Structure formats: structure tokens, C-alpha cells
């Protein structure tokens, strides 16, 4: 029973936001010693399992290629392409962005999007502008927050449920590295990545549907806000 303290160390460490690398190291040593291993055996266990799971860190060799392409404007070109979607409604625009983010992440390009790279400079402002164009009025602060929150969500959902379709992503390699070395298996990354595809499809339909509903919700709440404040209808709304 006492070896479960190692799990407690992991939970406490992550909950109290200690350095994750340190948490893992301490939890490994504590668990090994509580599991009646000698210090020498603990060291051997660290060394052996580190050697067995080297495949997990292999994805680092992608970095020089991506670094080279970013230097030559990979992100800028991605932005140019997304910028062409300017005529869609807010919900439709975010749905297309969700798809783009999923597909590019599935091809291993998970760093071309992100909160700092695309959401703040591009996705959120475009979604807000689209919502205001559709409504023909300025968004109240509460709805502006909502559009921004959904912009961030389409980026994050797209990344999470796209990247696992790529072979060389930390999570897939963590699974094969851990299982192959611990249970003497020969699972290949591609077998795992295939199972991520049905969930990527589910994620697109579920989150995409919610993004499309956002359009309806904005329309309803804009109408309610206009009635409540007895604001004059924006120009052109009666046509």
C-alpha cells in the first residue's frame, strides 16, 4: 500500500505547481525506495527506463526543419491564408479555423497556431469584426468576451484533437515509449494515431456545431440587448 505515496507525490507536486521535472524525479525516487529497491537499483531503473523510452524525445529532430520554415515566413503565410476568410460570420469563421487547426496539427504543424501566434493577433479580432458586421452594431462587453473566449476555445480544441493524429507528437510517443518498455510490447505509433482520427471527427462536429450555434446566440442576445436598452436600431437594420 505504501508505494501509493509515489502517486500522492505526483498529485501534490502538480497541484501545488512545483517544477514538473522535479516532481517526476522526486516521485520516482520515493516510489522506488518505498517499493523496497536499493538506491543502486533505483539508479539502474532510472537509467534502464530512460534508455528504453528514448523514442519519446525523437520528435526533437523536427525542430530544425520547422525553425527554418518559420524563419522564412511559415506563420506569416498561414496568417495570410486565414485572413482570406474575412467574409464569413463569426461562428462559421471559427468553425473553419477549427478545421484548419485540426488538419495542420494532424500534419505535425502544431506550432503555426496558438494563443500568441494566431488567436490574439488574428482569430479573435476577425471573429469580433464578423460578429459586429452581422449585427450591424458594436458588441456589448459581455458578448465581446464571449466571442474572444470561443476564439481561444476553437484553437485549443483544434490542437488537442488534431495533434494526436500525427505520429511524432509527445503524447503518442509517450504511450509507445511507456507501454513498449514496461510491458515488452511492440506497438507502433501509427496504430495509435489511427485511433485518434474518429475522435478528431467527433471533436470537429461537436465543437463546430457549438460554434455555429454561437451565431444564433449572438443574434438573439444582440436583439435582447437592443430592446432592453431601448437603443435605436443600427442604420440599415430595417432594410
Amino acid at each position, binding site marked *: 500500500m505504501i508505494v501509493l505515496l*509515489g502517486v500522492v507525490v505526483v498529485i501534490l507536486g502538480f497541484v501545488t505547481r512545483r517544477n514538473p521535472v522535479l516532481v517526476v524525479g522526486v516521485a520516482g525516487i520515493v516510489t522506488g525506495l518505498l517499493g523496497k529497491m536499493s538506491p543502486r537499483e533505483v539508479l539502474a531503473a532510472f537509467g534502464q527506463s530512460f534508455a528504453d523510452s528514448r523514442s519519446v524525445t525523437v520528435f526533437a529532430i523536427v525542430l530544425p526543419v520547422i525553425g527554418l520554415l518559420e524563419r522564412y515566413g511559415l506563420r506569416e503565410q498561414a496568417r495570410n491564408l486565414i485572413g482570406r476568410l474575412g467574409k464569413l460570420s463569426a461562428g462559421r469563421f471559427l468553425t473553419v479555423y477549427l478545421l484548419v487547426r485540426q488538419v495542420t496539427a494532424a500534419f505535425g504543424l502544431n506550432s503555426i497556431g496558438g494563443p500568441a501566434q494566431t488567436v490574439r493577433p488574428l482569430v479573435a479580432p476577425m471573429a469580433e469584426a464578423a460578429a459586429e458586421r452581422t449585427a450591424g452594431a458594436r458588441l456589448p462587453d459581455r458578448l465581446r468576451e464571449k466571442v474572444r473566449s470561443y476564439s481561444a476555445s476553437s484553437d485549443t480544441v483544434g490542437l488537442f484533437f488534431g495533434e494526436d493524429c500525427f505520429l511524432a507528437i509527445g503524447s503518442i510517443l509517450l504511450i509507445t515509449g511507456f507501454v513498449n518498455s514496461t510491458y515488452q510490447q511492440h506497438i507502433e505509433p501509427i496504430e495509435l494515431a489511427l485511433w485518434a482520427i474518429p475522435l478528431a471527427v467527433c471533436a470537429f462536429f461537436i465543437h463546430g456545431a457549438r460554434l455555429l450555434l454561437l451565431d444564433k446566440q449572438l443574434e438573439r442576445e444582440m436583439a435582447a440587448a437592443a430592446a432592453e436598452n431601448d437603443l435605436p436600431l443600427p442604420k440599415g437594420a430595417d432594410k
Partner: protein
Amino acid sequence: MIKVEWLYWLVGLVFVVMAVQMAADRTNPKRWTSAAFWGLLGVTFPYGTGVVNASKGTGGWTLPAEPLGVAVLALIVLAGFNFLGKGVPVTTTGEQREASATRLGSKIFIPALTIPVVAIVCAAVLDDSGLFQEGQATLLGLGVGCVAALVVGMLVTGEKKISVPLHSGRSMLEAMGSALLLPQLLAVLGSIFALAGVGTQVGDIMNSVLPENSKYLAVIAYCVGMYLFTVIMGNAFAAFPVMTAAIGWPILVEQMNGNAPAILAIGMLAGFCGTLCTPMAANFNIVPATLLELKDQYGPIKAQIPTALALLVCCTVIMAVFAF
């Protein structure tokens, strides 16, 4: 025949070359300790060949595992006590990148797409050709894909110096810091948990709680367990070894003969559903709120929770239906 160890040597070499670049980078306030970290990590790759040879008896040179364990603890100390620093990135200006994006257009995506295309071709077509070590075609395909993409990338961009991609890659390495090593360390932790019997302990508890042979309850326990553990810890990678050693492997795969790749891949994604819902995963959920200057820092999480819960149901159902 191309062996997977060759790929590990290449990865190790890339880390060592980048470590040398770091040591020479005077803009990095912690250049010596940074170089020590990445250089040591690079050396563990060829050293690991000897450790694996010794444990598997596959021939070739053999080396003891204990010194590698000491090296791993040294890496943990260097990363855990903040000895890693960043230099000023060697890159182009925003205007230069804009100009180059206009010049190259969407051709810039070709090298990036080369990586997965080559990797998939190797895994699907060349697996039985005898060209690659058996059972390693995907990983080797990735290595071949990266080398091919680098050549294509230099042709497309017209870059002639090999030091340029290495410098750009090093800047990305410095930006990621110890986060790059975390998945491998969590795999190590999972193995130590298994060796020390953590999985069997949690498994015994689960066995006493779950009714005998109830496949559906076990699937729910694994998926919801991954979800809740990830919500608490903010990291699906950390939840994975624990839940897999406890339920995923002993109960779902061994006891109930489930399809291992399906169970493990979907289990990880159930954890991702948890990541979407937790403020503990600050870099994904809180940082965007700050960047977007939201008054409600939980705005993105609120937008994600219904999707995440629906997807958790999808994970559970797909696993229950297709993994057995």
C-alpha cells in the same frame, strides 16, 4: 538494414551540436548550464544503445544502466532548479518574414508536409521491405522524413547554410526548455511505478471496487479516471502512466483482452478532455484569457467544458464499442 539506434544517434548528435551552439552564445545568461543540460541529454542517446544491448542481449557493446541513472538525475536537477536559459533568437525580422512569405507563397508548406508524407509511406509501404529494422518503420520513417524535409526546405527557401536550421531549431529548443524532456521522464516514472508495484496496488483496489468482469464499468473507470486525474493535475501526460498501470493495462488489456492501441490512444484523449476543463493547465486555458484581456479568466474554459464533456462520452463509447 537501417536500425532504430542510428536514428537515436542522429538525435543525440543534433542535441550535442545545439549544446555547442549554446555554449558559444553570449546572449544566454545561463549558457554553460544550458549547454551542459542539452549536451548531457545528447550523450544519453548513444549511451542508451549500450544499456539496451545489455538488457536485451542483442550483441554489440554493453554498458551498465546505473551511470545513465545518475545522468538522468543530473538532467532533472539542471532542469528542476532553473539552470536552463535562453539566448536572443537568431532569426529574421517581421518584415523579412512577410517578404519571404509573399515570395514563396504556399510553397513554404511543402517541406512541412514532406515529414508526415514520408513517415506514412515508410510505415505503410516499406515496413515489410526489409529496409528498416522490424517493428520500427514508423519511427525510422519520421527520421527519414525529417532529413528529406530539411533538404526540400533548403531548396524551397534557397537557404544554403546548414547552420541556419540548426540555429533556428536551437532557439525553439531553448523556448521549450525542460518541457521537451517531460514526456520521456513521465514514461520513466510510469516504468518505475510498474516496477515498484504501484499499478498492481491501484489495480487491486479497483478490482475490489469494480464488480467482476464488468467491461463497461472498467472502461468508464479508465476514461473518467484519466479525465479527473488530468483535471486535478493539469497534465494528461502525468495522469497516463498512473491510470494505465492501474486500470488500462492490467484490467482492460490483459484481463479483458482489449485492443491495446485503441484503449491507450483513446485513454490519452479522455485525459485531453480533462485538460480542456482545468485552470491547472494554465498555458492552454489561462494564458489565452490573459492575452485576450478577458475580465473573466475562466472564459475559455467555460467555452470548452460542454465540448469536453461530450467528447469524454464519445471516448468512453468508442472504447467500449470498438476496443473489444
